[in-house]
């Protein structure tokens, strides 16, 4: 699983990468995940729905991330624009 974060002037940045089935790596992923949420990021998991449609799942905790997810994408939380 890879944790990616969108960045102005750069595009996505790799925050962390690891295997959720390896306890030590999972803990590192969880720590990195929480750190991003604490910085005010939203987290999304791109998925393919059962009907083949592409969509995303917004997750608020690492436990909500599907175990087989390949990546979680963090982006700044939405704010009302002008």
């Amino acid at each position: 699983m890879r944790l990616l974060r969108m960045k102005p002037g750069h595009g996505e940045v790799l925050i962390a990468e690891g295997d959720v089935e390896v306890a030590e790596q999972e803990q590192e992923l969880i720590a990195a995940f929480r750190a991003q949420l604490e910085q005010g990021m939203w987290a999304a998991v791109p998925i393919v729905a059962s009907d083949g449609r592409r969509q995303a799942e917004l997750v608020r905790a690492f436990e909500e991330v599907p175990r087989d997810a390949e990546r979680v994408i963090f982006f700044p939380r939405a704010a009302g624009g002008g």
Partner: protein
Amino acid sequence: MLVALGACAVVAIVLTAEVAASAVKRSLVSWRVRVAAGRAEDIAAYDPGRERRAEQRARELLRSCVGDDDWAMYRDLGFLRVWGRAGSGMGAGHGVAPYAYLIYPHKPIVAYVPTSARLLSEYCVEFPDAERPFGSTRLPASDDVLAKWMALTGDEQRLIENANLHLAGRALDPHAVRADIAALARWDHERLQRRSTDAGSVPAP
């Protein structure tokens, strides 16, 4: 005696002025050096290709997330359509969506009725990065589109609640948006035609 004291005072004043002048001169030179160094740092920090590379990365990420059809739509038309789900039963995989959204980079999301092309509203939303890693809070254009797409498909209600709602036509020209909807209808039609043609074609022996 008075003449001697006066002469001493004049000498002291002249010497003090000399010392002060040289100090001012040194400060001026030092300031000029600092300003020049600052300009050099600014020039070094400015990378004309950075935004282009960031956008290229963002396009690849968008492409990998939205799938071939939506990627082709964005590539060809410059925006994405997302079907609305609230109360339509689309979440359960059936029914016809009564409304849809157009996602433009760094512009409001437009809600409209696909069957009539009637514009419903504009949702002004941004994803500002408070860290300003390169002096800007703005994501690359395609990252902005992907953020809107993920938020809309992942939690439509949450995104709408965080957006500022305006009547259609406030920020985007309604004629231009209707032209985009018409272009999208033509694009959909041509794509369906191509698919049916491809499905009916017989491979060469």
